[in-house]
């Protein structure tokens, strides 16, 4: 269960980053997929408040996932994206 939750956290972090990036300039990214991931992000945020999981832990997992994906996304896009 923990790993599923952390994978969800990773996925939704990436979605938030892509949404954020695409909101800064026109993007061809499929909006429905990103919006879907954003909904999962919201559900995850609610779930992280469940005491059984330990909300303090979830907060740190979420920010860690966001930080890691942010670095990987921005650097990876420069190396493997179409724009240089």
């Amino acid at each position, binding site marked *: 269960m*923990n*790993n599923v939750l*952390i*994978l969800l956290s*990773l996925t939704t972090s990436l979605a938030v980053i892509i949404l954020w*990036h695409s909101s*800064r300039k026109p993007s061809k990214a499929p909006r429905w997929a990103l919006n879907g991931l954003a909904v999962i992000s919201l559900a995850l945020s609610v779930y992280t408040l469940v005491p*059984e*999981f*330990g909300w*303090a*832990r979830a907060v*740190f*997992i979420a*920010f*860690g*996932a*966001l*930080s*890691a994906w*942010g*670095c*990987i996304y*921005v*650097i990876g*896009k*420069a*190396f493997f994206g179409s724009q*240089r």
Partner: protein
Amino acid sequence: MQRDTIRKYYIVHSWVGVVTGILLFIVSLTGALSVFGHPELKIWSHPEIRGDINHDFTSIDYLVRQHAERVDPSYLEHVRITLPGDSSATKLYVGFEKDVELENGGHEHHVTVFSHHPKTLDLESTFTGNSRDWFAQFPGDMAQFMTTFHADLHLGNPLGLVLTGLLGLTLFASVVTGVLIHRKILKDLFSFRPFRSLHLLFTDTHKVLGIWGLLFHGVIGFTGAFLGLVLVLLVPAAAFVSFAGDQEKLVETFLPETEPALTGAPAEPQIGRVLTDFTREHPGLTIRDSTIYGWGDSGAVIAISTSGGNTLSAFVTHELNAVTGEPLAEYSTFGRHDSVTGTLLDAMYPLHFGDFGGLLVKIIWSLLGVGTALVAVTGMMIWIERRAYGTEGSLSLASYHRISRFTAGACMGLVVASLSLFYGQLLLNVAPTQMTYWLGVLFFGSWAAVLLFAMIRHNSYRSIKELFALSGLLALGIPVLNGIVTGDALPLALMNGKTVSAGVDFTLLLAAALCLWTARKLPDHRPERGRFRNLTSGKNPHPAEENAL
């Protein structure tokens, strides 16, 4: 904020960074590896604990009872069972402990420990003596070497711990001053232009990794400072303020020993049944060790120390009646004091090492740790670039080149030295107690050799390129050598359920691919005016970026 104030913060940020940059790189990179020190690298280092170890608690119970009949009854104060495998222990240890009063009024902890093979449970050795000698004869390995180097740079207590603690503080200070001087944080979040110029490659890498990992760097800096300074400064200071300088009293208050409610009625502890039931009821927990207090009494308590629970605490202890298995208490390391202080103290270690959410969180923490190391080294390179090719320098160009070569040699040398530890672990055929010494010779020897190589080469671009290629080849060779020496080649390890060993080998293959790809992409000379003309699509840099050179 006024321009002058920002300028002052900038000066503090750049000088704190340049003075501590290489050390920060060293501690961050070894920290990224140390995240997997226990148990992953420990298991990789010891082929005998690779693969699933099914703990046969009935047999263990039988062994403990046999030993308990043989040892002096005074040793039955504490009976400790340490399970091999995920707990990082390489054998099954059954220890009997007692406190001995010394003539000078002091105490000494005496132990009798029976060491059993982790899988066959055959008795391999017996030790009797004080606990200090017991820990001193423990065999060293590369996992222990790496984690100790991260903690105190092998300089020991207090020098090493104070140094790493202060490095944590300087990292925290760099994060704060970095935020204060950076007025376009959100704008720079997605700005990464590696192919435009050397200067932009360094500044964008520094900013992107620094900003995205901002909270991580802050947490690592703060918890690192705490863990480094807690034993040397914080405990003595707290004891001085609250316990009239009595440090033992402070430790007893925060970490009280388990006191069983003895009944006087004799009863045999049911270790096998209690541990089997506990494992069935808590399948997600890893048992590190179990200690029985009050052996032979119906009120005896078994304290089971576990990791892997759903808390922001590295370890949780479950106390049960050792005869009936009735749960009595459950607490984290500092959790017996129901206070915010206890919660904060518990969180320090897991937050620093990412040990609070399983393997995935460890991977995230390790990647971000590499990011911290890159922030440190790119900060150094920006400092050198601005002085060697900008207007800020006061030394000769040759002097800045020497600093650049030293930085490259020290940083790449650490990568090569860390990889050499894997070779040492597989190939060194020395007495277990001599292992740490020879690993040190190999580690510091290869580091010094790379540093010397980088210093005598005039073209640091070519030497960095070559050292990346060397690191890639070294990383590539480890899984091959592991297959030859231990027989656990990657496919075989996977088929035999040795997932940890296979995971380490697979990670090394990924690291090898990354290093070789980087070596291929890096220029072997300084690009003309610092620009990567050949790597872009033939276009010149934007005029605004050209001005930044």
